[in-house]
């Protein structure tokens, strides 16, 4: 049953098969493309600031899919029907988290290659950037899921969720982008640790939020 659910969730969110789900990745590359136009083609400056830009673009790209992540299936009664079949809300949300990350994490990592080329990020810096995004995107996905579940029953939920994600994602951004400036691996460890804690927490928080939304 869990596998069927994962397949369904993936089909819904995955780029090119889902409804307009490629948008976050396109958005991400677009930011990386615009930045050199905005600050000029100075290779040194680009290499120095480019990593931070990629991180900000990744954060903003993580906001885009939030609108559809949970609210739609609450309105559909999808979670209700699963609940009647004995599936715990926590399990639904764990599957959703995995599907959400798979639909924006790996495509974002792939898009980092062209983005890094546009921003003249090379060598050691590039590998730290890639590792940092690999460690950080699960955490971003987890924050996104919690916020999407909490705001699902609000009318302005979509706009609000973007606003809420930014401060909560700050620790990941600070350590992720900080690793680039210092060229160290320790910060990457922090990013990974924050991500793990968030991933462990998210299904429970989001599951409780879905149950609470029913009581209205």
């Amino acid at each position, binding site marked *: *049953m869990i596998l*069927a*659910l994962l397949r*369904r969730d993936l089909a*819904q969110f995955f780029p090119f098969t889902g*409804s307009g789900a490629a948008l976050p990745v396109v958005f991400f590359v677009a930011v990386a493309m615009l930045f050199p136009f905005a600050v000029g083609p100075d290779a040194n400056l680009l290499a120095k600031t480019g990593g931070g830009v990629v991180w900000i673009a990744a954060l903003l790209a993580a906001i885009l899919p939030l609108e559809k992540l949970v609210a739609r299936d609450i*309105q*559909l*009664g*999808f979670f*209700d*029907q*699963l*609940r*009647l*079949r004995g599936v715990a809300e926590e399990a639904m949300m764990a599957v959703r988290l995995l599907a959400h990350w798979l639909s924006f994490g790996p495509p974002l990592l792939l898009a980092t290659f062209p983005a890094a080329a546009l921003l003249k990020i090379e060598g050691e810096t590039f590998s730290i950037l890639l590792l940092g995004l690999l460690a950080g995107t699960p955490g971003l996905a987890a924050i996104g899921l919690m916020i999407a579940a909490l705001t699902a029953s609000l009318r302005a939920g979509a706009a609000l969720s973007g606003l809420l994600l930014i401060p909560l994602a700050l620790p990941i951004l600070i350590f992720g982008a900080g690793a680039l400036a210092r060229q160290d691996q320790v910060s990457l460890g922090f990013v990974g640790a924050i991500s793990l804690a968030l991933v462990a927490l998210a299904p429970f928080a989001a599951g409780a939020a879905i149950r609470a939304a*029913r*009581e*209205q």
Partner: protein
Amino acid sequence: MQAPSPLLTAENLACRRGERLLFRRLSFRLEAGAACHVTGANGAGKTTLIRALAGLTTPYAGEVRREGALGLLDERTGLDPDLPLGRALAFWERVDGCTSPDGAITILGLGPLLEVPVRFLSTGQKKRAALAALLNRAVPIWLLDEPLSGLDTDTIAKVVALIRLHIGGGGIALIASHQPLDVPGMTSFAIEDFAPAPEEDYA
């Protein structure tokens, strides 16, 4: 081994919507083969009752007991609006482990609609699709919230026949509807009879 016989009971049930108490001291007991018709005006609390019976919400007071798997039919079908009906139903068939879904699809006349995306279906067609999903689950307890709304007379007759068949086979059906239903042996109550008096202090 025989499956334990299904049971659905409510004891001193009270439910609120927001701050308003909708009904209280509601008790009933439905055993295998029983059908119950809940009547009441819009907003009287039929849907609230059904969601509490389904275990989706916690009642304000009282207790619900369920023995046996439970199927819910309400205005939210759980079918993906973007998928063609056939594939949207196939998801639930996989989840429910249903290997022969064609019977329900034929009975409810959904064959010609299988290629149509769910969002293009009319209210009545969606209701028929949700009924097919319910039939394919093969659960003993049915909770039906307005199962007849939006249906044409032919389909209404079919749904009533399906309910008769279901309770004839030892199932339980609780139907919230303001339309009359012709099911032999069916009990019924009006939810308004359990509404609190205007100045009543319910605790």
